[in-house]
């Protein structure tokens, strides 16, 4: 199988005054294209830092990251941005919709960044798919939490990404709404054949993915395939 993400001996340290704080150390793993992968661990275990590094949002202190065939080390800030725009999708715990844009406008931002002419049409189709056909022109503040996350889902799939990072996608939602969002996420992922990397506290959710990476204190505790895998 082709590997879409290759992490090799990754390390991340922060310096605060004279103190050195190691957040991640000796992290190595690979993710197969089209798979669903989860990262779990207690608060402060380095999950979000790892996700940020994998997506090229930050630079590692040591080690290498290969995302969609590109070694992130060799790319500058803008090249990494373009890689994200073309190959990567994001879903955040707190939705992170642009409050000044309508639902539709939020969804089509990645497409517009690519210069896509039919962005609006694609955006509308996606919003219909997530059940928000009547919410195109609503601003985020006019939508409920579940609706906002569905808009975020539509946005995440709008640029047909090869890989999608979801950071605690249900963390801000109640159980029922959260479950609906996850079902929708899995369904869209299946249709698009995207690789999905989910960060979660929820072990039930993690068990529904094909592989679980457990982190603790910035180190890998285990990296196992699940029954689903």
């Amino acid at each position, binding site marked *: 199988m082709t590997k879409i993400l290759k992490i090799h001996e990754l390390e991340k340290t922060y310096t605060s005054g004279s103190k050195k704080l190691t957040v991640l150390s000796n992290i190595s793993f690979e993710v197969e294209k089209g798979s669903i992968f989860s990262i779990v661990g207690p608060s402060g275990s380095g999950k*979000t830092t790892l*996700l*940020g590094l994998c*997506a090229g*949002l*930050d630079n590692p202190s040591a080690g290498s990251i290969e995302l969609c065939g590109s070694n992130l080390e060799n*790319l500058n*800030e*803008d*090249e990494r*941005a*373009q*890689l*994200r*725009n*073309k190959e*990567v999708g*994001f879903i*955040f715990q*707190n939705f*992170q*919709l*642009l*409050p*000044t*844009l309508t639902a539709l*406008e939020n969804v089509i*931002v*990645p497409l*517009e*960044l*690519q*210069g896509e002419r039919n962005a609006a049409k694609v955006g509308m189709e996606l919003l219909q798919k997530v059940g928000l056909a009547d919410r195109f022109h609503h*601003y985020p503040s006019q939508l409920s939490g579940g609706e906002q996350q569905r808009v975020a889902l539509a*946005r995440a799939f709008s*640029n047909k990404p090869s890989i999608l990072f979801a*950071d605690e996608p249900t963390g801000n939602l109640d159980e029922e709404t959260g479950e609906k969002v996850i079902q929708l996420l899995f369904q869209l992922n299946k249709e698009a054949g995207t690789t999905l990397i989910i960060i979660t506290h929820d072990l039930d959710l993690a068990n529904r993915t094909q592989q679980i990476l457990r982190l603790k204190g910035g180190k890998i505790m285990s990296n196992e395939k699940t029954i689903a895998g």
Partner: protein
Amino acid sequence: MSKLPSKTSVKWLFKMAWRDGKASISRLMLFMASIILGIAAVVSIQLFSDNLKQNIKNQSKALMGADFIIDSRQLPTKKVQAIIDSLNVAASEVNFVSMAAFPKNDGTKLVKVRAIEGNFPFYGTLDTEPVNAASIYQELGGALVDATLMLQFNIKPGDSIKLGKQTFPIIGALKSIPGSTAFSSSVAPTVLIPFRFVDDTELLQLGSRKEYQYFFIAPPTMDLDLLDKKIDPVLDDENADLDTHTSTSERLGRRYDNVSRFLNLAAFIALLLGCVGIASSVHIYIKEKLQNVAVLKCLGATRKQTFLIYLLQVVGIGLIGGVLGAVIGIGLQYAFPYILQGFLPFDVQIAITVQPLIIGITLGVLMSVLFALLPLLGTWYVSPLEVLRGTDENLVKPRKARLFTFAAILLFVFLFSFWLLKDAIFGLVFTVGILITFSIMAGIASLFMKAIKKYFPSNWGFTKRQSLLNLFRPNNQTMVLILAIGLGTFLISTLYFTKDILLAKTSIENNKDNANIILMDVQNTQKEAVINTVLPKGLEIIDNIPIVTMRLHQIKDQLVNDIRKDTASTMNQWILNHEFRVTYRKSLLASEEILEGNWSSAVEEGKPILISISDNIARDAALEIGDQLIFNVQGVLMETIIGSIRKVDWGRMQLNFSVVFPTGVLENAPQFNVLTTYVSDEASSADLQRDLVKKFPNISVLDLRQVYTLIEDILNKISWIINFMAFFSILTGIIVLIGSVRNSKYQRIKESVLLRTLGAKSKQILQITALEYIYLGMLGSLVGILLSLISSQLLAVFLFKEPFIPSVVPFLVFLPGITMLVLLIGLSNIRSVLKSPPLEVLRREV
């Protein structure tokens, strides 16, 4: 990696800037208001200056009433007369200042008599009431009298006016005459009479200050510049002068240029104040957008793209603000002719010129971008990781970029003030002055916050402590508010103090030692009789000053005529052409101080005549102690040596002399006298004037109290204009204030709601907010007033050379007034919190 198609990318940037800006329109409107006001001020004044210049140019002939004039302070010499005759004189006049009496009500007034021969003016009109009076007064042998003067003395056409020994019927009221301003005619209002009656008045006697003017119409082929070059030097040698309508209008243009520049600077200050608003609004605006920027970066937008989205918004706001400001500026300039009416000797025709509009719009964009650049740079450095972390870290402050932005702002301020003032040094002084003022205010604000932190009164009650805490909490607006309030107050107080200094300079001490009536042109033969008229009224003669008129014939070893011809000479022209009015006396006056040499009270026999000159003559003619000056005393050459150089306080309302002779030299020269006295009230003044005019028609009486009233009027008018400009600064200041208060609204509301939820009463929330704004208002206005004390002291010492005694008005009026304004704006902010339930507020506002 493939790059985005640039066209699509640019289109998307505009689209995003529009979408995002649309949703934040109310925030951006305040930002825009700051620009609009500043630009409106600049554009209106720029346009008006342009119109003024154009009008002066277009109306140059009407301003002079002729194509060119030859004038002289004495009867033309043979040579001058020959030139006048050869140029075909069209009209002429002699003008002088004299007392006029109105037999109808015994009123008397100092007037400027213009005795005219011929059909002057040839361009422009004599505006009279009735209209035909201008064309018939010559024929009827009557007078045209200044319209305001006629109103003051309740005189109507048909009444009479007595000038010297001659009484004239008043044919009409003179409303305007080419080349005369409301100001010049209010000191000595104009009275026009036919020239043929001058001798009958018997007013032109020894020492009378008179001016002969000869008006010419130039044939179409005549080159006036060439004429000026050819004839003027010849006329100068004969103590006459040639003025063409073009040179006069250029001179006039330069004079009004100074007024325009001052107004422009005031407008520029308003604009700078607006820029503080821009910087503050954009700072908070961008801070709130950083999360969006991080999201966009996560979605693949580059640093350049995110930066450009907000830059485009700022440019757009600057552009719209510039256009709206320019439109308002166009409207406003229609107000200027009314405000400046008294200063202008003509009606200003308003026309719209393109240059000020372009300047306004360019300024709007440039200022917005420059002052928004610093906060905008924050978008460049924001990490997309912020999205995952959800942190609210402070903006990255890149050192180099900040320095570069500061330098660009300072350079821009310097270049613009240089362009306005046309002088690099003044531009630099202005820029440094602005920088120092801003730095002091920012320094005080920062010290204030540190001081509160260090000496925090932890034993105070909750509301008082909370209000103090608000001053240095994260994202506080203390610095911006103190800058806005401080700068506004600084401007208003400086203007107020300046007006005070100017008025104090002209105020008169009302006591018997200070003369307030000056009797001019008293002939030697009249002196005793005049004194005998004054003394029986219980008045004292305070000064009895003899005056001898003379001109310079030779300076050191060079004849004055030779110096005139010497093109390399740097000597000030006025020295060469001036008719000096010289006195002789034994001692120095209180207003004089010897700088160099020794005072000589009387000439010693066989020794040279040691005279004393004022320091300005010494400077302008490069003279030193021991240098020789030869004066032409009405035909007799008199050799003198400079014995002393004096500093003279010209500001004092008394007779000061640039040249003083020792006694024992000029006693027998043809001379006239100036007598001064003190009258306690207006009735005594009128009584004295009536008697003197009846007995001695040639004597002019100057009532200094009237002059003071006039100067006060003029100053009031000037301060009106200054206040008009200050109004822009204040209004901009208020908008900046509202903007700053609004910027922190969300935070304050959230906090107030939280307090409310925890059970705080309306009164407590109100107290916390009120106290906070009272601290800010008081500190800001106090800093402004204190700084204005420094600037006014500097102005008093270096510009007005007067002592400065600060008035308490700014402390009693401005300080509480501005604090109250700040308080009101601040309280309006939390109105909704006090009136509605907490949750409703949070839903609505957040």
